[in-house]
C-alpha cells in the first residue's frame, strides 16, 4: 500500500516560541517538482508581534557580558554541529548537491565560531581613547542600535542567513528576520537550533513569507531602529521610507556567501552607535598639583 507523505509545517519563531502565522495562510514552495513543506505566509501583525518581542528582549541581551554572548554564539555552533544530518538533508531538498550541502553547513558552523570569538574583542579593537585639548578623559565605545530588521539572502538558505544575523546580534541588537522565500526550510530549522541553545527568546525572531507583502511595514515601523537588506537590489520604496523615518539602512549582498570577505568584524559595526564620553580629570603632567 502506498503511503501519503506528511508534509511538515514550518512554524515561525517569535519571542522564543513557535506560533503559527496569525493570518492562517501558508504557501508550499517547490524544488524540482517536489514540495518542500507548508510554510507560513507571515502577515504585518506577525511582524508587529516579532518587533514587540525583539524590543522587550533587547535591553537584557545588550546587558549580557561580552564573554557570555561569546559563549552563547559558540553554543549555537555546537547545536548546529549536532544536527548536521537534518540541515544537510534540507539543503539537498532545496536543490544543493551533497558535497555543496556539507560545505555550506560546515562553513556556517565555522562562521558562528569566528563571530563567537569577536564578541569580547570588537570593543577593544574599535573603541578608542581620544586626544582632546582639555582636562578630560575622552573615550568612544560602541553601543547597540536596538531592534534591527533583516531581509535575509534569498539564494543562501543557511550560510547567508547566519552571515547576516550573527554580526547584528553580537553587538547587543535584537533581530527580526524575513527568511528566504524560495528556500525557507533551513531558517526555521535554525530557529529550532536557537531555541535549544542558550540564546534568550526574542533576540532572534524569524518570519517566513513574501518579501513584497512585508517590505513596506518593515521600513515604516517606527520601533525598528535599523535595517539590513541582503538581497540583490534594495527596493526603491524601502530606501524612501528609511529616508522619511531616518532609519539606518545597510545593504549586504554577495554572490558568494562563503567568501572570506564576510568574515569581517566591520560587519558588527554596521549596526552599532558610537557613544563618546567626556570624563573630567586632574591635569596630569606639566605643572605640579595644586594641593
Amino acid at each position: 500500500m502506498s503511503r501519503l507523505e506528511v508534509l511538515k509545517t514550518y512554524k515561525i519563531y517569535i519571542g522564543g516560541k513557535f506560533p503559527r502565522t496569525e493570518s492562517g495562510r501558508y504557501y508550499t514552495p517547490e524544488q524540482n517538482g517536489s514540495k518542500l513543506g507548508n510554510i507560513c505566509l507571515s502577515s504585518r501583525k506577525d511582524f508587529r508581534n516579532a518587533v514587540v518581542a525583539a524590543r522587550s528582549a533587547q535591553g537584557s541581551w545588550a546587558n549580557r557580558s561580552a564573554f557570555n554572548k561569546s559563549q552563547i554564539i559558540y553554543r549555537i555552533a555546537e547545536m548546529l554541529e549536532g544536527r548536521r544530518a537534518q540541515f544537510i538533508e534540507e539543503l539537498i531538498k532545496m536543490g544543493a548537491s551533497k558535497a555543496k550541502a556539507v560545505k555550506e553547513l560546515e562553513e556556517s558552523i565555522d562562521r558562528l565560531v569566528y563571530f563567537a570569538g569577536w564578541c569580547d574583542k570588537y570593543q577593544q579593537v574599535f573603541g578608542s581613547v581620544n586626544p582632546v585639548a582639555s582636562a578630560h578623559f575622552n573615550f568612544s565605545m560602541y553601543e547597540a542600535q536596538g531592534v534591527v530588521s533583516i531581509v535575509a539572502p534569498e539564494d543562501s538558505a543557511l550560510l547567508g542567513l547566519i552571515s547576516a544575523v550573527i554580526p547584528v546580534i553580537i553587538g547587543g541588537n535584537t533581530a527580526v528576520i524575513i527568511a528566504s522565500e524560495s528556500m525557507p526550510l533551513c531558517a526555521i530549522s535554525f530557529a529550532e537550533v536557537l531555541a535549544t541553545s542558550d540564546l534568550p527568546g526574542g533576540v532572534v525572531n524569524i518570519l517566513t513569507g513574501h518579501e513584497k507583502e512585508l517590505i513596506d511595514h518593515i521600513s515604516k515601523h517606527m520601533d525598528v531602529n535599523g535595517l539590513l537588506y541582503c538581497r540583490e537590489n534594495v527596493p526603491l520604496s524601502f530606501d524612501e521610507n528609511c529616508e522619511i523615518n531616518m532609519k539606518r539602512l545597510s545593504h549586504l549582498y554577495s554572490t558568494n556567501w562563503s567568501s572570506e570577505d564576510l568574515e569581517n568584524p566591520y560587519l558588527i559595526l554596521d549596526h552599532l552607535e558610537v557613544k563618546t564620553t567626556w570624563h573630567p580629570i586632574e591635569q596630569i603632567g606639566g605643572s605640579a598639583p595644586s594641593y
Partner: protein
Amino acid sequence: MKNLLNKPLKKHPDFRHTTTIDQVGVLERTSRITKRSIKNEAKMQGLKMALNMIDLTTLEGADTDQKVRQMCNKAKNLHVSSIKLPTTAAVCVYPSLVKTAKKEVEGSGVKVAAVATAFPSGQAPLDVKLADTKFAVSEGADEIDMVISRGRFHQGEYNYVYDEICAIKEACGKARLKVILETGELGSLDKVRKASDIAMYAGADFIKTSTGKISPAATMPVTYVMLQAIRDFYTQHNIMVGMKPAGGISTAKVALHYLIMVKEVLGEQWLNNNWFRFGASRLANDVLMQIEKQLSGAYQSADYFSKD
C-alpha cells in the same frame, strides 16, 4: 445634569445569600468578546474614548510632588498629535499629594482621585480610615478610592463591611466614592459578586476591581461579573453605578475589549467617564501609539512618546 452621588440603601438583602456565578459561562462569554474584530473607524472612536476614561495613576511610596506634577501635566496634554486628543478623566494619587495634583490640574477638567482608608491593605480601625478620607476630601479630592476590609469579608462579617462603606460614604461628602474590592484577594467569582452587591447597597458610586498592588489585578471575567452586578442593581433599583477595572490593563487592544463588554452588558449610557474608568499608568501611551498608528499607517515606537 443628573446627580452623580448615590446613597446607601437602608433596606438591603441578607448578604449571606447572594447570587451565585456560573464560572464556565463567564469564561466562555468573555473569551468570545476578545475575538471580535474592530474596524478602523470604530477603533479610532474607541481609542479616543478609552483615553478619556483613564485615571492616570501613581501610587508609589517614592512619589514626590514633582512626579505628581509631571503626571498631571501628562493627563492634561497627552501627546502632540495632528488631531485634537481628549484629556484623561482623572489622576489618582495618595491623599498627601492631592493638594499638589489639584493645583496642577485646575481648570483643565481633569479630576483628582485619592486612594484612602489605609490603602492598599485596609487594615486599620474605622476612625483612622475616616480621618484618612476626610483629610483627602479637605485637600480637594473629587473622588475617593477606598478599599474594603477583606479580612472581615472573609470572616463572614458582611454587615461590618457594609456599615464601613456607609460610614466612608458619609465622610466623602460631595466626593464620589469608588469601592475597591481587591478581587485578587477574594478568591472566587461568587465572592466578587457578593462584595459588589455589598458595595452598591452601601452607596458606592463606582465599584473598582483592584488596588493594582497585587496580582491578579483586573481580569475580564471578574469585570464581567461586576458589570452584571451593576446591571442587576440598576434593573432593581434604577440606580446607576460606575465601574473601574484597575491594574494590569496596559494595551489598547485589551482596553477596547473592556469597552465592548461594557457596551454589551450595560449599554451606551455607561460609555463615558462618569460611569466607566480605567485605572492604569501604562495604558495611555499604548492607546496614543495606536491612535498615531491609525493616523499614519505606521506602527509607533515608545521612544517618541513621553514616559510619564
